[in-house]
């Protein structure tokens, strides 16, 4: 009831807000981030198209750096195939099957974390659902975003998916062993496209098959791990 004149009209209010729509996901991501920080664990959100070579990259990383204590959470709409492949390669891995969801969110990662081994780890790679759109906007609590882009996907991919590439801290140009068969693909043009959507473009050309670039990728992870904020000791 209108309390100004008692006319019987319902009162209308307009509330000004500045509330992040994905705020509840971001709070959960903050909780994950704190968990990773306490464990001294570098968490990476690995994104890319289906078939861009994310799983093969992790298998090859394990071969290239057997001393790096790596674990993975692997998101897919259905099946545990990627997690099974990773476990077969010696990487502790947990599958997150999303049903029909096109991305992982912080809550799904949180649940999966309970199933990871207690043993000390250096790097946790969250292999996101293959998709160049949706995963980019959901914070999972990672320290950095890594996007796998294969040489067969086209040099203009970064320009077509700017939301994803803007969010990237590192782009891995995968399947570089195919470059000799693709004379029309220029690594320089991929780098130029990245510079138009990524303010500080960083790209490493890698091949899971030949091992090219994997040393630099491992060095990048080690450098990221060194700059992780040191854990504050409880008084």
């Amino acid at each position: 009831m209108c309390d100004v004149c008692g006319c019987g009209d319902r009162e209308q209010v307009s509330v000004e807000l500045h509330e992040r729509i994905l705020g509840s996901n971001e709070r959960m991501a903050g909780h994950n981030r704190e968990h990773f920080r306490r464990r001294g664990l570098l968490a990476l959100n690995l994104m890319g198209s289906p078939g861009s070579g994310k799983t093969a990259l992790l298998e090859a990383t394990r071969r290239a750096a057997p001393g790096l204590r790596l674990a993975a959470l692997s998101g897919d709409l259905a099946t545990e195939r990627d997690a099974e492949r990773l476990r077969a390669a010696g990487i502790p891995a947990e599958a997150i099957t999303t049903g029909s969801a096109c991305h992982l969110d912080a809550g799904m990662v949180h649940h999966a974390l309970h199933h990871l081994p207690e043993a000390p780890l250096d790097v946790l790679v969250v292999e996101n659902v293959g998709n160049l759109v949706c995963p980019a906007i959901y914070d999972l609590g990672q320290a950095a975003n890594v996007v796998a882009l294969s040489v067969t996907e086209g040099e203009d991919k970064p320009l077509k998916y700017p939301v994803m590439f803007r969010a990237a801290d590192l782009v891995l140009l995968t399947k570089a062993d195919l470059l000799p068969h693709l004379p029309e693909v220029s690594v320089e043009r991929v780098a130029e496209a990245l510079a138009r959507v990524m303010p500080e473009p960083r790209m490493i050309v890698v091949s899971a098959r030949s091992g090219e670039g994997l040393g630099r990728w491992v060095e990048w992870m080690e450098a990221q791990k060194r700059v992780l904020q040191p854990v504050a000791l409880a008084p």
Partner: protein
Amino acid sequence: MHEYSIASALLELVDEQARRHVATRVLAVHVGVGELAGVEPELLRQAFELVRERSVCAGASLEIRRVPARWACRDCAASVPPGLELRCAACAAPARLVEGAELLLERVEMEVA
């Protein structure tokens, strides 16, 4: 198609406002969507139509304010035009996104008892 999960999150926030203000119904929901927020306004609208059924938002309009991406030099704050290398023409420092990635609930208009 993550717009459904975004529409659901939006509905929860609006519902919370409606309860706080003891609203009988919501008339309009205003959101700000950045060009680089990764959200398609038309898909968000369709998703909102579906998720609002039988909620306090049934009948509410969704007003979407598009926010274009705006880049500026990290160091000297000079504007950096999109479409080219995201680097300052004057001092060569990388650009930073000033606005255009936001996904915000900005205003709720409600009818209260």
